């Protein structure tokens, strides 16, 4: 009996290391640095994107990088807690500035990660954005628009998600503009009537419509709560007739009336991010739709768009005359700088 127990089983002996190696490979393990992701962008800014410190379209990448290692390789960084928390980048330190707490936050493809930078791998085409900003109002800004056409083009966490443009008026000009802009950016997007039908939890929604048409959508509702609820430094009046622009302290800096648009991203209760293209009226929505442009949105957390004639620029960091929006409206960065 004891002899039979000790008899080696060649098949099992052969299979065990093979299975182990397969498991090792499947779980992302291996020797060496791993495959190098291509097309990675790295943006380092401060004050909600108002000041650019680095904008690297081809940062140094060696093998499989995490968000942290990508940063360490391309900037002078000091870290804390065993390299898990960024304390400073190029001499810009987290801590307190003017009595307000400031720290470094990062977004991958415009989405705030729930994990530390050392836990998140960089994938091909990812746009990594580090920003040093005041989090006295909120430390929760779940999504930003400044990495457009991400997250639509390469998705989240290396996984491309279906994109659905949901419009109050699917045949309206704004809806067609949004779908067209996405198509031009290489993103196939389905157009649909606004509503929950057919919405999967694993899809990216772009909601298009006037405030009065879209305000019942769950993600849109969070905008009413201001920055603390949505991470968007703007507040739309209950009637939807005006858009109040806030500074980084949550104070109202200016109010847009007439035809004005708002283009922002937020996230409702752990679902995938939602982009909101809205306005005070159909013309405002169209202004916002036209602002869906890489040049206009680059490095912005969210934008408000005012008709050019009615709203002069308040400063160089506050406005941009984008390729398309310049002809129709002034793109105002959110949060607005303190006047």
């Amino acid at each position, binding site marked *: 009996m004891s002899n039979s127990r000790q008899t080696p089983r060649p098949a099992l002996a052969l299979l065990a290391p093979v299975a182990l190696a397969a498991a090792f490979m499947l*779980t*992302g*393990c*291996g*020797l*060496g*640095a*791993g495959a190098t992701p291509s097309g990675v962008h790295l943006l380092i800014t401060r004050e909600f994107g108002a000041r650019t410190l680095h904008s690297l379209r081809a940062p140094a990448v*060696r*093998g*499989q990088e*995490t968000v*942290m*290692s990508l940063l*360490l*390789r391309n900037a002078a*960084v000091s*870290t804390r807690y*065993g*390299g*898990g928390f960024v304390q400073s980048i190029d001499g810009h330190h987290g801590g307190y500035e003017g009595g307000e707490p400031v720290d470094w936050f990062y977004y991958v493809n415009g989405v705030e990660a729930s*994990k*530390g930078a*050392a*836990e*998140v*791998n960089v994938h091909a085409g990812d746009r990594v954005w580090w920003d040093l900003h005041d989090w006295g109002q909120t430390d929760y800004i779940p999504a930003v628009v400044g990495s457009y056409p991400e997250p639509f083009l390469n998705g989240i966490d290396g996984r491309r998600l279906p994109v659905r443009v949901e419009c109050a008026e699917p045949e309206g000009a704004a809806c067609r503009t949004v779908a067209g802009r996405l198509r031009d950016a290489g993103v196939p997007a389905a157009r649909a009537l606004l509503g929950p039908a057919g919405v999967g939890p694993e899809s990216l929604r772009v909601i298009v419509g006037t405030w009065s048409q879209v305000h019942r959508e769950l993600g849109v509702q969070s905008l009413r709560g201001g920055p603390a609820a949505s991470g968007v430094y703007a507040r739309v009046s209950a009637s939807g007739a005006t858009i109040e622009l806030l500074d980084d302290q949550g104070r109202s800096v200016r109010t847009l009336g007439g035809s004005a648009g708002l283009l922002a991203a937020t996230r409702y209760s752990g679902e995938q991010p939602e982009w909101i293209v809205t306005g005070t009226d159909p013309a405002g929505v169209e202004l916002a739709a036209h602002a869906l442009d890489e040049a206009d949105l680059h490095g912005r957390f969210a934008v408000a768009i005012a008709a050019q004639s009615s709203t002069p620029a308040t400063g160089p960091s506050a406005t941009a005359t984008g390729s398309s929006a310049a002809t129709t409206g002034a793109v105002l960065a959110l949060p607005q700088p303190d006047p």
Partner: protein
Amino acid sequence: MSALRRSSPESGSHAGSGAFGRFAPMLYRPLASPLHATRAGIAALWALSLMTGALLLYHPLALAALIAAILLAGYGAGVGRELARALRTALIIGLPIVLVNVLVSREGLTVFARLGDLGPFGQGNLTVEALAYGGVIALKVTVLVLITALASLAIDPDALLRICRRLSFRSALTTSLAVRMLPLLAADAQRLAEAQRTRPDGAPRGARARAALLGAVVAGSLDRAMDVAATLEVRGFATAGRAPRQQRPWSRHDLAFLVSAVAVLALALLGRLTGVAAFTSYPLLHVPFGVGLLVLCAALALSVLLPFADRRGIEL
């Protein structure tokens, strides 16, 4: 007190082969070596200087030079075997330091293996930098362990306590008694363990045996503490004043080890401040090697070892 006198320091070095079998403290023995012949204060200063040097330096070659020099110094002091044992202990401490640093640190950039997602520890990217930094810390710990062992073996604790006695008599007396009790406790443990094994119904085993032994040793030590306190009281220790300064002429060994201590400290500072022994672990490993570094390492080793070259006047 008679019990204190009866016990020799050697009795502790091989005491406790029963349940306390692995407890073999490194204790001072008077030997014929330059370090033993040096006054305790200077020898302690020399040891402290080497420790400071190890804390100041990060270059692995400089730390390796210090380790080699200390091991040779141990042989020069006649305690080479004990230091070899201390080296094994240091390796047991150092290896986990390296492993933990490799697994936890995320500041390095040269990945040599990927373990996938390790949950709270992030992506398990093992880097050369984390390995190197862990190794450097392990080397530092090794130096500290070796120096501590050498100091314990070669510096007379009584002489050290005499220095303390002038500063605080009661503290020095308490420390002195505690140090003296250590070999006694080990001897007690050995004796009790042997008695335990001779019981006709068989000795208890495992944790129960150790707990019983520990209880007996603690109870015995409390009894002895009461006896010692009474003895000290009777002999008038409570009224003792500040101890007089002991005049002792400086020997050549005192001077040699003092110069050695200053030289080691100066060389470590020089290496640190001039960048000759520069070492950057994060984010990319940078370990420069040059003639300056080699000279520094040689000078460090010579500074540690030269006092041992003079063997005159070290007879017991």
